[in-house]
């Protein structure tokens, strides 16, 4: 059973696990998917890429931002059967740029980074997208604590 105590204007409630097992009766307003103010994910409602998405880990705003945007846009709009297979050139150019800034875009996998990016290009955005993303764009120091970067 929960216990309630009041100290002036402050109310203190202690609850056990059982107390909270009964589902909540609190109402939350349903989310509006078309809300223009809400932070959007990677793909905007109109189908375009949200370059400012924290999920991109700052790839679009760094020194190789232009190359990344070219490659990723090509991939996004690619209609090939193997998505992005017509974008190898752009990915190649991007990879070259990434290699010029090893401090900013650390290559997790030193030996076969160019290989893997070539291979994985059709399937998904190349690996540098993920790894440095969490590292470099975590403008908050404790990403475990939810922050605007991760929404």
């Amino acid at each position, binding site marked *: 059973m929960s216990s309630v105590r009041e100290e002036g204007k402050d109310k203190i409630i202690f609850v056990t696990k059982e107390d909270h097992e009964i589902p909540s009766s609190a109402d939350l307003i349903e989310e509006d998917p078309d809300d223009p103010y809400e932070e959007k994910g990677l793909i905007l409602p109109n189908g375009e890429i949200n370059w400012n998405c924290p999920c991109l880990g700052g790839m679009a705003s760094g020194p190789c931002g232009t190359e990344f945007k070219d490659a990723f846009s090509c991939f996004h709009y690619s209609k090939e059967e193997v998505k992005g297979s017509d974008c190898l050139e752009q990915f190649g150019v991007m990879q070259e740029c990434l290699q010029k800034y090893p401090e900013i875009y*650390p290559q997790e996998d030193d030996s076969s980074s160019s290989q893997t990016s070539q291979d994985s290009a059709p399937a998904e955005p190349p690996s540098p997208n993920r790894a440095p993303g969490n590292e470099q764009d975590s403008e908050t120091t404790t990403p475990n604590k939810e922050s605007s970067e991760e929404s």
Partner: protein
Amino acid sequence: MLKCNTVCKRFAPLVRASSTVCRQNVRRAGLNNVRTPTCVPVARMSTEPLGGGGDNLKYALLVGAAFVGSLTYAVVTLKGDHQRSVKRMEDISTRLQKSTLHIQSAPPALSKPKPEAAPSAEQSSPPPEAAAPDAETTGKPSADSTSPSHKLPSHTPYLLIGGGTASFAAARSIRARDPGAKVLIVTDEPDLPYMRPPLSKELWFSDDPSVTETLRFKQWNGKERSIYFQPPSFYINPEDLDSAENGGVAVLTSKKVVHMDVRGNKVKLDDDTEISYDKCLIATGGIPRSLQVLERSGEEVMKRTTLFRKIEDFKSLDKVSRSVNSITIIGGGFLGSELACALGRKSTESGLEVVQMFPEKGNMGKVLPEYLSNWTTEKVKKEGVKIISEALVKSVACKDDKLEIQLKDGRLVRTDHIVAAVGLEPNVDLAKSAGLEVDSDFGGYRVNAELQARSNIWVAGDAACFYDIRLGRRRVEHHDHAVVSGRLAGENMTGASKPYWHQSMFWSDLGPDVGYEAIGIVDSSLPTVGVFAKATAKDTPKAATEKSGTGIRSESETEDTATSPVASATPAPAVEHKDDYGKGVIFYLRDKVVVGIILWNVFNRMPIARKIIKDGEEHADLNEVAKLFNIHED
């Protein structure tokens, strides 16, 4: 002329005398022809001082000689001066060339790592071959160029005043949304943009003795990183900004914007350089508030006082903490309490006395409801801090190399060094010249919900007093707000027109037992409802925090403090829960609507908290709302 007359008259009798002698001599000698001519002029001179043809000639010669002499002197002097001035001009131009060469040679180290960046030996950017994942640390570009910046861009599409968190977030946002954007950041600090929270938390817990140089810390996930957002290679040289094909972010350090011309869309720096812009962001943050009492106490006291905010303050406080016996922190808010805990932990090794004094009854007295503030204060005491609450400083004096703090209630505290953490004064220096409104309630530049002050001018971060659609006008001094508002300003500078909507959060860690996240308006003067989990054995603070990986703690330290007096059995009803606020959620209400939430030792639930605030609904039973947080789970 007159002089000549008198002289001649004086000599006249002598001359007459000598002339008669001469004549006599001549008669005696008998050699008239020889002697006579010599005497004759003498005789003549005695009777007629001036005049006579020969005299005129002599006079003319004398004057002529004097004239020629003075002319020669004049010419020589002028020539000498000319030579000197030419030499001086040469000196100046060579100095100019040297310094521009210096600027030119040094920055290549910043931009693409070219091998010929060798001359810039003083730059601390590592050679490109050192492709280690660790980011560049010191981040000092060519900060020491004192020559007029005739190589700097005279125009930049995006000008960001201030080089902190908000500015960096805006730069990112602009670059992401405007392809090839050219962004110029102007900061009066010598450092590249860095994050502030570790300066009062993680950096103090580093085991690395060179941490004041490297400025690296361990994150929650064990990975190390620098406090600088990006290494120097991320940025481009201000001089290269104009010509950069794909644009970039350039940082101009150690330069202050002193004047803003809003109609002309340009700013003036402290070295008289003018830079015009298309869009401008003011993200000037603030400076730590001082206490009048301290200011009045004289230089000896101020020498022993730290106003903590920047990297240099961290470095100097670290040094001080190793050399003194006692440090007193004035201020019981976030910064003061975090520093007290950080120094308190150090004190166990070094024997340093750490005192914290503040006017409130307990730590975080303005944020946490009284019961929780008291609980927190006890925890801070356990970190080795001597707490003096309800303390108002009356005067401070320096006696025998020690500081004496006299409190209004008569207590006296003797210490070696003071750290003042009594708030932030937002920097609104440009308000006057730019004609920008300053908010009288919260301070800072007044901006609308889209963070805009005037056409083409936005403000973000600590200095922005903005309109929050949900919570009303406010000014927020937290790191995440700087990120959120910076991003939003950047979006709006590139045409988005979005209001402040995504609520920022903040967090604090005060030792191993107290860690919380918060969102919205968290003011202890508001009525609150706190829902806490009845403690079980599993809910030891150590377990909770380790699982979530928050904060900073070493194994050995948590062993002692973790075994707090908690009940053992899980569903035991009549559990003694007196004063044990292990984990829970606290709602802050304004007119029955939740405007703020603190997640107390409960993590990864921020999205739910954000949603509740966004909805802005009146909830009859907050316990029901608390259920949404599932506080009993980890």
